[in-house]
Protein backbone atom coordinates (compact mmCIF):
# COMPACT_ATOMS: atom_id res chain seq x y z
CA UNK A 1 0.00 0.00 0.00
CA UNK A 2 1.49 3.29 -1.08
CA UNK A 3 -1.37 5.44 0.15
CA UNK A 4 -0.24 8.61 1.84
CA UNK A 5 -3.17 8.85 4.22
CA UNK A 6 -4.31 6.29 6.71
CA UNK A 7 -7.50 8.12 7.64
CA UNK A 8 -10.83 6.43 7.00
CA UNK A 9 -12.63 7.23 3.77
CA UNK A 10 -14.56 10.47 3.70
CA UNK A 11 -16.36 9.69 0.48
CA UNK A 12 -19.47 7.53 0.35
CA UNK A 13 -20.49 5.13 -2.36
CA UNK A 14 -23.95 3.90 -3.25
CA UNK A 15 -25.37 1.32 -5.62
CA UNK A 16 -27.71 2.57 -8.35
CA UNK A 17 -30.98 0.61 -8.28
CA UNK A 18 -31.34 -1.69 -11.28
CA UNK A 19 -27.79 -0.87 -12.43
CA UNK A 20 -25.88 -2.42 -9.55
CA UNK A 21 -23.53 -4.30 -11.84
CA UNK A 22 -22.78 -1.35 -14.08
CA UNK A 23 -22.52 1.82 -12.03
CA UNK A 24 -21.88 3.17 -8.57
CA UNK A 25 -22.50 6.65 -7.26
CA UNK A 26 -19.81 8.32 -5.20
CA UNK A 27 -20.22 11.43 -3.08
CA UNK A 28 -17.52 13.74 -1.74
CA UNK A 29 -18.29 16.76 0.42
CA UNK A 30 -16.20 19.93 0.76
CA UNK A 31 -16.62 22.98 2.97
CA UNK A 32 -14.75 26.28 3.25
CA UNK A 33 -14.25 26.20 -0.49
CA UNK A 34 -12.40 29.26 -1.81
CA UNK A 35 -12.16 28.60 -5.55
CA UNK A 36 -15.76 27.86 -6.48
CA UNK A 37 -15.66 30.27 -9.40
CA UNK A 38 -12.59 28.64 -10.91
CA UNK A 39 -13.91 25.14 -10.64
CA UNK A 40 -17.35 25.93 -11.97
CA UNK A 41 -15.66 27.70 -14.90
CA UNK A 42 -13.48 24.71 -15.61
CA UNK A 43 -16.55 22.48 -15.61
CA UNK A 44 -18.23 24.75 -18.13
CA UNK A 45 -15.20 24.89 -20.40
CA UNK A 46 -14.58 21.20 -20.02
CA UNK A 47 -10.96 21.73 -18.94
CA UNK A 48 -11.21 19.44 -15.91
CA UNK A 49 -10.83 15.88 -17.11
CA UNK A 50 -12.91 14.10 -14.48
CA UNK A 51 -16.65 14.10 -15.08
CA UNK A 52 -18.50 15.17 -11.94
CA UNK A 53 -21.68 16.93 -10.89
CA UNK A 54 -21.04 19.87 -8.57
CA UNK A 55 -24.09 20.12 -6.38
CA UNK A 56 -25.32 22.67 -3.88
CA UNK A 57 -25.65 21.21 -0.36
CA UNK A 58 -28.00 24.02 0.62
CA UNK A 59 -30.68 22.42 -1.52
CA UNK A 60 -29.31 18.92 -2.05
CA UNK A 61 -29.45 18.00 1.60
CA UNK A 62 -29.55 14.19 1.64
CA UNK A 63 -27.77 11.41 -0.24
CA UNK A 64 -31.09 9.94 -1.34
CA UNK A 65 -31.88 13.01 -3.41
CA UNK A 66 -28.67 12.47 -5.37
CA UNK A 67 -29.33 8.74 -5.60
CA UNK A 68 -32.77 9.28 -7.10
CA UNK A 69 -31.58 11.97 -9.51
CA UNK A 70 -28.71 9.71 -10.57
CA UNK A 71 -30.97 6.70 -11.02
CA UNK A 72 -33.25 8.74 -13.24
CA UNK A 73 -30.32 10.15 -15.20
CA UNK A 74 -28.92 6.69 -15.89
CA UNK A 75 -32.35 5.38 -16.85
CA UNK A 76 -32.66 8.28 -19.32
CA UNK A 77 -29.20 7.57 -20.67
CA UNK A 78 -30.09 3.92 -21.26
CA UNK A 79 -33.26 4.84 -23.14
CA UNK A 80 -31.47 7.65 -24.98
CA UNK A 81 -33.77 10.35 -23.72
CA UNK A 82 -31.41 12.59 -21.78
CA UNK A 83 -32.28 16.26 -21.94
CA UNK A 84 -28.83 17.68 -21.18
CA UNK A 85 -25.48 16.87 -22.77
CA UNK A 86 -23.81 14.69 -20.16
CA UNK A 87 -24.83 12.16 -17.55
CA UNK A 88 -23.54 14.40 -14.77
CA UNK A 89 -25.42 17.48 -15.89
CA UNK A 90 -28.48 15.28 -16.22
CA UNK A 91 -28.15 14.48 -12.51
CA UNK A 92 -28.38 18.16 -11.58
CA UNK A 93 -31.24 18.65 -14.01
CA UNK A 94 -33.07 15.70 -12.44
CA UNK A 95 -32.75 17.09 -8.93
CA UNK A 96 -35.13 19.86 -9.89
CA UNK A 97 -38.91 19.58 -9.64
CA UNK A 98 -39.17 21.55 -12.88
CA UNK A 99 -37.89 21.08 -16.39
CA UNK A 100 -36.11 24.40 -16.78
CA UNK A 101 -32.43 23.59 -17.19
CA UNK A 102 -30.92 26.95 -16.25
CA UNK A 103 -32.98 27.20 -13.14
CA UNK A 104 -32.07 23.65 -12.15
CA UNK A 105 -28.38 24.52 -12.35
CA UNK A 106 -28.80 27.79 -10.48
CA UNK A 107 -30.69 26.21 -7.61
CA UNK A 108 -29.26 22.72 -7.31
CA UNK A 109 -25.80 23.04 -8.80
CA UNK A 110 -22.86 24.65 -7.02
CA UNK A 111 -22.20 28.15 -8.30
CA UNK A 112 -19.31 30.63 -8.29
CA UNK A 113 -20.25 31.81 -4.78
CA UNK A 114 -20.59 28.41 -3.16
CA UNK A 115 -18.50 27.69 -0.12
CA UNK A 116 -19.81 24.17 0.37
CA UNK A 117 -19.84 21.75 -2.55
CA UNK A 118 -21.16 18.24 -2.92
CA UNK A 119 -19.34 16.32 -5.63
CA UNK A 120 -21.35 13.51 -7.19
CA UNK A 121 -19.58 11.14 -9.54
CA UNK A 122 -20.92 8.11 -11.36
CA UNK A 123 -18.32 5.38 -11.68
CA UNK A 124 -18.76 3.17 -14.71
CA UNK A 125 -17.72 -0.31 -13.65
CA UNK A 126 -17.23 -1.46 -17.22
CA UNK A 127 -14.73 1.28 -17.96
CA UNK A 128 -12.75 0.37 -14.87
CA UNK A 129 -12.75 -3.18 -16.04
CA UNK A 130 -11.05 -2.08 -19.26
CA UNK A 131 -8.34 -0.30 -17.30
CA UNK A 132 -7.65 -3.50 -15.40
CA UNK A 133 -7.79 -5.72 -18.47
CA UNK A 134 -5.36 -3.65 -20.50
CA UNK A 135 -2.69 -4.57 -18.00
CA UNK A 136 -2.49 -1.23 -16.29
CA UNK A 137 -0.58 -1.92 -13.12
CA UNK A 138 -3.06 -0.09 -10.90
CA UNK A 139 -6.09 -2.10 -9.85
CA UNK A 140 -9.52 -0.58 -10.06
CA UNK A 141 -9.75 0.72 -6.51
CA UNK A 142 -6.38 2.44 -6.90
CA UNK A 143 -7.44 4.18 -10.08
CA UNK A 144 -10.56 5.31 -8.26
CA UNK A 145 -8.42 6.76 -5.50
CA UNK A 146 -6.34 8.47 -8.15
CA UNK A 147 -9.46 10.20 -9.48
CA UNK A 148 -10.50 11.24 -5.99
CA UNK A 149 -7.08 12.72 -5.42
CA UNK A 150 -7.50 14.79 -8.59
CA UNK A 151 -10.80 16.14 -7.28
CA UNK A 152 -9.21 17.01 -3.95
CA UNK A 153 -6.40 18.91 -5.66
CA UNK A 154 -8.90 20.72 -7.86
CA UNK A 155 -11.09 21.98 -5.03
CA UNK A 156 -9.53 24.38 -2.51
CA UNK A 157 -11.43 23.47 0.60
CA UNK A 158 -11.72 21.06 3.44
CA UNK A 159 -13.02 17.60 2.66
CA UNK A 160 -15.43 16.31 5.29
CA UNK A 161 -17.20 12.98 5.50
CA UNK A 162 -20.09 12.89 3.03
CA UNK A 163 -22.47 11.58 5.67
CA UNK A 164 -26.13 12.37 5.94
CA UNK A 165 -25.51 14.32 9.15
CA UNK A 166 -22.82 16.49 7.60
CA UNK A 167 -24.86 17.14 4.49
CA UNK A 168 -27.86 18.26 6.47
CA UNK A 169 -25.83 20.90 8.27
CA UNK A 170 -25.84 22.99 5.09
CA UNK A 171 -29.57 22.66 4.34
CA UNK A 172 -31.44 25.91 3.71
CA UNK A 173 -34.88 24.72 4.71
CA UNK A 174 -36.72 27.81 3.52
CA UNK A 175 -35.19 27.64 0.07
CA UNK A 176 -35.95 23.94 -0.16
CA UNK A 177 -39.59 24.45 0.80
CA UNK A 178 -39.91 27.27 -1.68
CA UNK A 179 -38.23 25.58 -4.63
CA UNK A 180 -40.09 22.33 -4.23
CA UNK A 181 -43.34 23.98 -3.06
CA UNK A 182 -43.73 21.99 0.13
CA UNK A 183 -45.98 23.42 2.82
CA UNK A 184 -47.00 22.78 6.40
CA UNK A 185 -49.90 20.40 5.77
CA UNK A 186 -47.67 17.95 3.96
CA UNK A 187 -44.92 18.23 6.55
CA UNK A 188 -47.34 16.99 9.20
CA UNK A 189 -47.20 13.55 7.63
CA UNK A 190 -43.97 13.71 5.63
CA UNK A 191 -40.33 14.57 6.10
CA UNK A 192 -38.90 17.31 3.93
CA UNK A 193 -36.86 14.63 2.19
CA UNK A 194 -40.00 12.60 1.34
CA UNK A 195 -41.55 15.70 -0.18
CA UNK A 196 -38.48 16.35 -2.30
CA UNK A 197 -38.12 12.72 -3.45
CA UNK A 198 -41.77 12.59 -4.47
CA UNK A 199 -41.43 15.69 -6.67
CA UNK A 200 -38.25 14.45 -8.28
CA UNK A 201 -39.39 10.86 -8.77
CA UNK A 202 -42.77 11.76 -10.25
CA UNK A 203 -41.77 14.94 -12.07
CA UNK A 204 -43.16 13.62 -15.35
CA UNK A 205 -46.58 13.26 -13.80
CA UNK A 206 -46.93 16.66 -12.13
Amino acid sequence: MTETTTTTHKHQTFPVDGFENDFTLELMLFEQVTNAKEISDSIKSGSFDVEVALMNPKTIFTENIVRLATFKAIASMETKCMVTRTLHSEIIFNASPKTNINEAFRRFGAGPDSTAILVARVCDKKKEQIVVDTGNSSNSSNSEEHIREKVRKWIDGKEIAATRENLQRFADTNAIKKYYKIDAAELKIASLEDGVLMRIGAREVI
Partner: protein
Amino acid sequence: MDIDDKEEEEEEQREEKEETTTRKTKTKTKTRTTTIDDAVEVDQDDEHLLQRILHYNNNNNNNNNNNNNNNNDGNDENRRREEQEKRLHLLSQGAEARVFSTTFLGKPCVVKQRFRKKYRHPVLDQKLTRSRLFAECRSLMKARILGVQAPTVLFVDKRSSSIFMERVEGKSLKEVLKSIAAEEDEEGEEKKEEEKTTPPRNATAEDATAAPSSSSPLSSSAHRRAVKYGREIGLIVSKLHDGNITHGDLTTSNFLVHAQTDSIYVIDFGLSKTQIVGEEDIGVDLYVLERSLVSAHSREGARVWQECLRTWKETCGKSKEAFKRYEEVRARGRKRSMVG
Protein backbone atom coordinates in the same frame (compact mmCIF):
# COMPACT_ATOMS: atom_id res chain seq x y z
CA MET B 1 -33.07 40.58 -1.90
CA ASP B 2 -36.48 41.95 -2.93
CA ILE B 3 -35.36 42.39 -6.49
CA ASP B 4 -34.04 38.87 -6.47
CA ASP B 5 -37.35 37.48 -5.31
CA LYS B 6 -39.26 39.53 -7.82
CA GLU B 7 -37.05 38.38 -10.63
CA GLU B 8 -37.46 34.84 -9.57
CA GLU B 9 -41.19 35.11 -9.45
CA GLU B 10 -41.38 36.66 -12.86
CA GLU B 11 -39.14 33.95 -14.12
CA GLU B 12 -41.33 31.31 -12.57
CA GLN B 13 -44.37 32.67 -14.33
CA ARG B 14 -42.51 32.74 -17.60
CA GLU B 15 -41.40 29.19 -17.04
CA GLU B 16 -44.83 27.98 -16.23
CA LYS B 17 -45.99 29.36 -19.54
CA GLU B 18 -43.08 27.67 -21.26
CA GLU B 19 -43.81 24.41 -19.60
CA THR B 20 -47.43 24.39 -20.57
CA THR B 21 -46.58 25.18 -24.15
CA THR B 22 -44.02 22.40 -24.36
CA ARG B 23 -46.56 20.07 -22.85
CA LYS B 24 -49.09 21.06 -25.46
CA THR B 25 -46.73 20.44 -28.33
CA LYS B 26 -45.72 17.16 -26.78
CA THR B 27 -49.26 15.84 -26.63
CA LYS B 28 -49.79 17.03 -30.16
CA THR B 29 -46.89 15.07 -31.54
CA LYS B 30 -47.93 12.08 -29.54
CA THR B 31 -51.40 11.86 -31.03
CA ARG B 32 -49.97 12.39 -34.45
CA THR B 33 -47.34 9.71 -34.33
CA THR B 34 -48.94 6.97 -32.27
CA THR B 35 -49.64 4.01 -34.48
CA ILE B 36 -50.07 0.35 -33.82
CA ASP B 37 -46.48 -0.19 -34.85
CA ASP B 38 -45.26 2.23 -32.20
CA ALA B 39 -47.23 0.49 -29.53
CA VAL B 40 -45.76 -2.85 -30.51
CA GLU B 41 -42.28 -1.43 -30.57
CA VAL B 42 -42.64 -0.06 -27.06
CA ASP B 43 -43.99 -3.42 -26.02
CA GLN B 44 -40.63 -5.08 -26.42
CA ASP B 45 -38.53 -3.26 -23.89
CA ASP B 46 -40.80 -1.10 -21.82
CA GLU B 47 -40.53 -3.29 -18.75
CA HIS B 48 -36.79 -3.38 -18.94
CA LEU B 49 -36.08 -1.01 -16.08
CA LEU B 50 -38.67 -2.51 -13.77
CA GLN B 51 -37.40 -6.01 -14.48
CA ARG B 52 -33.84 -4.93 -13.81
CA ILE B 53 -34.84 -3.67 -10.40
CA LEU B 54 -37.08 -6.58 -9.48
CA HIS B 55 -34.81 -9.29 -10.86
CA TYR B 56 -31.79 -8.13 -8.98
CA ASN B 57 -32.12 -11.30 -6.97
CA ASN B 58 -30.21 -13.88 -5.05
CA ASN B 59 -28.10 -15.03 -7.95
CA ASN B 60 -26.80 -11.59 -8.75
CA ASN B 61 -26.19 -10.83 -5.13
CA ASN B 62 -23.91 -13.77 -4.66
CA ASN B 63 -21.77 -12.96 -7.67
CA ASN B 64 -21.63 -9.38 -6.73
CA ASN B 65 -20.56 -9.97 -3.19
CA ASN B 66 -17.65 -12.06 -4.37
CA ASN B 67 -16.57 -9.43 -6.84
CA ASN B 68 -16.75 -6.74 -4.26
CA ASN B 69 -14.80 -8.47 -1.58
CA ASN B 70 -11.55 -6.72 -2.47
CA ASN B 71 -13.26 -3.36 -2.56
CA ASN B 72 -12.91 -2.00 0.95
CA ASP B 73 -15.14 1.04 0.73
CA GLY B 74 -16.80 1.81 4.04
CA ASN B 75 -20.29 1.20 2.69
CA ASP B 76 -19.83 -2.40 1.66
CA GLU B 77 -21.85 -3.70 4.55
CA ASN B 78 -24.73 -1.38 3.74
CA ARG B 79 -24.61 -2.27 0.12
CA ARG B 80 -24.69 -5.98 0.78
CA ARG B 81 -27.70 -5.63 3.03
CA GLU B 82 -29.54 -3.53 0.47
CA GLU B 83 -28.75 -6.03 -2.24
CA GLN B 84 -29.84 -8.98 -0.22
CA GLU B 85 -33.14 -7.36 0.64
CA LYS B 86 -33.94 -6.97 -3.00
CA ARG B 87 -36.05 -9.88 -4.18
CA LEU B 88 -38.64 -10.40 -6.82
CA HIS B 89 -41.63 -10.66 -4.57
CA LEU B 90 -45.25 -10.50 -5.66
CA LEU B 91 -47.57 -9.15 -2.95
CA SER B 92 -50.82 -8.95 -4.80
CA GLN B 93 -52.33 -9.66 -8.19
CA GLY B 94 -55.42 -7.60 -8.90
CA ALA B 95 -57.63 -7.10 -11.93
CA GLU B 96 -55.70 -4.10 -13.22
CA ALA B 97 -52.39 -4.16 -11.40
CA ARG B 98 -49.85 -6.28 -9.58
CA VAL B 99 -47.97 -5.17 -6.51
CA PHE B 100 -44.36 -6.21 -5.94
CA SER B 101 -42.27 -5.75 -2.86
CA THR B 102 -38.68 -4.63 -3.33
CA THR B 103 -36.23 -2.01 -2.11
CA PHE B 104 -35.50 1.31 -3.73
CA LEU B 105 -32.93 3.85 -2.52
CA GLY B 106 -32.30 1.38 0.27
CA LYS B 107 -35.87 1.81 1.54
CA PRO B 108 -38.60 -0.84 1.76
CA CYS B 109 -40.74 -0.19 -1.26
CA VAL B 110 -43.63 -1.59 -3.28
CA VAL B 111 -44.11 -1.29 -7.02
CA LYS B 112 -47.64 -1.15 -8.32
CA GLN B 113 -47.64 -2.08 -11.97
CA ARG B 114 -50.65 -1.73 -14.23
CA PHE B 115 -50.58 -4.39 -16.87
CA ARG B 116 -51.80 -4.72 -20.42
CA LYS B 117 -55.24 -5.99 -21.22
CA LYS B 118 -54.74 -8.24 -24.17
CA TYR B 119 -58.36 -7.92 -25.27
CA ARG B 120 -58.10 -4.16 -25.70
CA HIS B 121 -56.86 -2.50 -28.83
CA PRO B 122 -53.13 -1.93 -28.16
CA VAL B 123 -53.17 1.83 -28.71
CA LEU B 124 -56.31 2.36 -26.68
CA ASP B 125 -54.89 0.08 -24.01
CA GLN B 126 -51.68 2.03 -23.75
CA LYS B 127 -53.53 5.32 -23.52
CA LEU B 128 -55.94 4.06 -20.88
CA THR B 129 -53.21 2.44 -18.84
CA ARG B 130 -51.10 5.56 -18.89
CA SER B 131 -53.90 7.95 -18.04
CA ARG B 132 -54.95 5.75 -15.12
CA LEU B 133 -51.37 5.44 -13.94
CA PHE B 134 -50.97 9.21 -13.98
CA ALA B 135 -54.34 9.79 -12.35
CA GLU B 136 -53.54 7.38 -9.55
CA CYS B 137 -50.13 8.90 -9.02
CA ARG B 138 -51.47 12.45 -9.01
CA SER B 139 -54.15 11.60 -6.47
CA LEU B 140 -51.61 9.88 -4.27
CA MET B 141 -49.37 12.93 -4.35
CA LYS B 142 -52.24 15.33 -3.90
CA ALA B 143 -53.37 13.36 -0.87
CA ARG B 144 -49.91 13.71 0.70
CA ILE B 145 -49.86 17.42 -0.06
CA LEU B 146 -53.19 17.71 1.78
CA GLY B 147 -51.62 16.02 4.79
CA VAL B 148 -53.29 12.65 4.32
CA GLN B 149 -51.25 9.67 5.43
CA ALA B 150 -50.75 7.73 2.18
CA PRO B 151 -47.54 6.03 0.99
CA THR B 152 -45.03 8.49 -0.41
CA VAL B 153 -44.19 8.22 -4.09
CA LEU B 154 -40.56 7.51 -4.95
CA PHE B 155 -40.58 7.04 -8.68
CA VAL B 156 -42.96 6.67 -11.60
CA ASP B 157 -41.95 4.68 -14.65
CA LYS B 158 -44.36 5.31 -17.47
CA ARG B 159 -42.72 2.74 -19.72
CA SER B 160 -43.60 -0.11 -17.41
CA SER B 161 -46.69 1.70 -16.05
CA SER B 162 -45.53 1.43 -12.49
CA ILE B 163 -45.49 3.53 -9.37
CA PHE B 164 -42.73 2.97 -6.85
CA MET B 165 -43.90 3.90 -3.38
CA GLU B 166 -43.05 3.60 0.28
CA ARG B 167 -43.92 0.18 1.70
CA VAL B 168 -46.21 0.45 4.70
CA GLU B 169 -45.24 -2.29 7.11
CA GLY B 170 -48.43 -3.66 8.54
CA LYS B 171 -51.72 -5.36 7.80
CA SER B 172 -54.83 -4.20 6.04
CA LEU B 173 -57.64 -2.85 8.20
CA LYS B 174 -59.68 -5.83 7.02
CA GLU B 175 -57.22 -8.27 8.57
CA VAL B 176 -56.83 -6.21 11.72
CA LEU B 177 -60.58 -6.01 12.29
CA LYS B 178 -60.86 -9.73 11.71
CA SER B 179 -58.24 -10.49 14.31
CA ILE B 180 -59.85 -8.11 16.80
CA ALA B 181 -63.16 -9.88 16.18
CA ALA B 182 -61.50 -13.24 16.79
CA GLU B 183 -60.03 -12.03 20.07
CA GLU B 184 -63.40 -10.64 21.07
CA ASP B 185 -65.09 -13.95 20.39
CA GLU B 186 -62.63 -15.72 22.64
CA GLU B 187 -63.16 -13.21 25.39
CA GLY B 188 -66.88 -13.41 24.83
CA GLU B 189 -66.77 -17.12 25.51
CA GLU B 190 -64.92 -16.52 28.75
CA LYS B 191 -67.40 -13.87 29.78
CA LYS B 192 -70.31 -16.16 29.21
CA GLU B 193 -68.72 -18.59 31.59
CA GLU B 194 -68.42 -15.85 34.20
CA GLU B 195 -71.94 -14.61 33.66
CA LYS B 196 -73.29 -17.90 34.83
CA THR B 197 -72.08 -17.10 38.32
CA THR B 198 -72.20 -13.28 38.43
CA PRO B 199 -75.31 -11.23 37.67
CA PRO B 200 -75.25 -9.58 34.21
CA ARG B 201 -73.90 -6.04 34.00
CA ASN B 202 -76.30 -3.29 33.12
CA ALA B 203 -75.65 -2.12 29.61
CA THR B 204 -74.70 1.57 29.68
CA ALA B 205 -76.04 4.09 27.23
CA GLU B 206 -72.65 4.25 25.59
CA ASP B 207 -72.54 0.54 24.99
CA ALA B 208 -75.95 0.64 23.41
CA THR B 209 -74.81 3.16 20.81
CA ALA B 210 -71.41 1.58 20.53
CA ALA B 211 -72.55 -1.64 18.97
CA PRO B 212 -75.80 -1.14 17.18
CA SER B 213 -75.67 -4.43 15.33
CA SER B 214 -74.78 -6.66 18.20
CA SER B 215 -76.02 -7.69 21.57
CA SER B 216 -72.83 -7.83 23.65
CA PRO B 217 -70.56 -4.78 24.08
CA LEU B 218 -66.97 -4.63 22.88
CA SER B 219 -64.16 -5.07 25.37
CA SER B 220 -62.61 -1.77 26.34
CA SER B 221 -59.42 -2.31 24.37
CA ALA B 222 -61.28 -3.32 21.20
CA HIS B 223 -63.54 -0.32 21.71
CA ARG B 224 -60.57 2.01 22.10
CA ARG B 225 -58.93 0.76 18.93
CA ALA B 226 -62.14 0.94 16.90
CA VAL B 227 -62.66 4.54 18.00
CA LYS B 228 -59.07 5.44 17.16
CA TYR B 229 -59.25 3.90 13.69
CA GLY B 230 -62.63 5.50 13.07
CA ARG B 231 -61.31 8.94 13.91
CA GLU B 232 -58.26 8.57 11.74
CA ILE B 233 -60.29 7.29 8.79
CA GLY B 234 -62.87 10.04 9.24
CA LEU B 235 -60.11 12.63 9.15
CA ILE B 236 -58.48 11.06 6.10
CA VAL B 237 -61.75 10.99 4.19
CA SER B 238 -62.69 14.52 5.20
CA LYS B 239 -59.31 15.93 4.14
CA LEU B 240 -59.60 14.16 0.79
CA HIS B 241 -63.12 15.46 0.20
CA ASP B 242 -62.24 18.98 1.26
CA GLY B 243 -59.24 18.82 -1.04
CA ASN B 244 -61.46 17.78 -3.96
CA ILE B 245 -60.47 14.15 -4.15
CA THR B 246 -62.85 11.24 -4.02
CA HIS B 247 -61.12 7.94 -3.46
CA GLY B 248 -63.61 5.76 -5.29
CA ASP B 249 -62.81 2.52 -3.50
CA LEU B 250 -62.87 3.08 0.26
CA THR B 251 -62.91 -0.53 1.41
CA THR B 252 -61.20 -2.04 4.42
CA SER B 253 -58.53 -3.64 2.21
CA ASN B 254 -57.48 -0.20 1.03
CA PHE B 255 -56.56 1.01 4.49
CA LEU B 256 -53.34 -0.27 6.02
CA VAL B 257 -52.62 -0.28 9.75
CA HIS B 258 -48.96 0.41 10.44
CA ALA B 259 -47.53 -2.36 12.62
CA GLN B 260 -45.36 -0.08 14.75
CA THR B 261 -47.42 3.09 15.09
CA ASP B 262 -50.90 1.53 14.78
CA SER B 263 -51.87 4.45 12.57
CA ILE B 264 -53.92 4.27 9.39
CA TYR B 265 -52.65 4.74 5.82
CA VAL B 266 -54.93 4.97 2.83
CA ILE B 267 -53.80 3.28 -0.40
CA ASP B 268 -55.09 2.42 -3.88
CA PHE B 269 -56.16 5.63 -5.60
CA GLY B 270 -56.78 3.70 -8.81
CA LEU B 271 -60.44 4.76 -8.98
CA SER B 272 -60.09 8.22 -7.54
CA LYS B 273 -61.32 11.45 -9.05
CA THR B 274 -59.69 14.83 -8.67
CA GLN B 275 -61.37 17.03 -11.19
CA ILE B 276 -65.10 17.40 -10.86
CA VAL B 277 -65.88 16.09 -7.42
CA GLY B 278 -69.62 16.26 -6.91
CA GLU B 279 -71.73 15.48 -3.86
CA GLU B 280 -72.79 12.27 -5.53
CA ASP B 281 -69.16 11.04 -5.59
CA ILE B 282 -68.72 11.97 -1.96
CA GLY B 283 -71.97 10.23 -1.05
CA VAL B 284 -70.88 7.09 -2.86
CA ASP B 285 -67.44 7.24 -1.22
CA LEU B 286 -69.08 7.22 2.21
CA TYR B 287 -71.59 4.56 1.32
CA VAL B 288 -68.92 2.21 -0.02
CA LEU B 289 -66.94 2.72 3.17
CA GLU B 290 -69.97 2.07 5.36
CA ARG B 291 -70.85 -1.10 3.50
CA SER B 292 -67.32 -2.37 3.71
CA LEU B 293 -67.01 -1.66 7.44
CA VAL B 294 -70.44 -2.64 8.67
CA SER B 295 -71.33 -5.62 6.56
CA ALA B 296 -68.10 -7.51 6.78
CA HIS B 297 -66.96 -6.89 10.32
CA SER B 298 -70.14 -6.50 12.37
CA ARG B 299 -69.50 -5.01 15.80
CA GLU B 300 -65.96 -3.70 15.39
CA GLY B 301 -66.63 -2.36 11.94
CA ALA B 302 -69.85 -0.70 13.01
CA ARG B 303 -68.02 1.07 15.82
CA VAL B 304 -65.31 2.24 13.44
CA TRP B 305 -67.93 3.51 11.01
CA GLN B 306 -69.86 5.36 13.67
CA GLU B 307 -66.77 7.21 14.82
CA CYS B 308 -65.63 7.78 11.28
CA LEU B 309 -68.90 9.35 10.19
CA ARG B 310 -68.99 11.55 13.29
CA THR B 311 -65.46 12.80 12.62
CA TRP B 312 -66.16 13.36 8.95
CA LYS B 313 -69.31 15.36 9.76
CA GLU B 314 -67.42 17.48 12.26
CA THR B 315 -64.39 18.20 10.11
CA CYS B 316 -65.41 18.13 6.46
CA GLY B 317 -66.41 21.52 5.08
CA LYS B 318 -68.68 19.86 2.57
CA SER B 319 -70.44 17.65 5.08
CA LYS B 320 -73.74 19.51 5.19
CA GLU B 321 -74.87 19.08 1.60
CA ALA B 322 -72.89 15.91 0.96
CA PHE B 323 -74.41 14.13 3.94
CA LYS B 324 -77.87 14.48 2.49
CA ARG B 325 -76.63 12.99 -0.73
CA TYR B 326 -75.02 10.15 1.17
CA GLU B 327 -78.37 9.36 2.77
CA GLU B 328 -79.98 9.28 -0.64
CA VAL B 329 -77.30 6.99 -2.00
CA ARG B 330 -77.81 4.80 1.00
CA ALA B 331 -81.59 4.66 0.54
CA ARG B 332 -81.10 3.71 -3.09
CA GLY B 333 -78.67 1.03 -2.09
CA ARG B 334 -81.12 -0.38 0.44
CA LYS B 335 -83.91 -0.48 -2.09
CA ARG B 336 -81.66 -2.19 -4.60
CA SER B 337 -80.56 -4.83 -2.15
CA MET B 338 -84.20 -5.51 -1.15
CA VAL B 339 -85.19 -6.01 -4.76
CA GLY B 340 -82.11 -7.94 -5.79
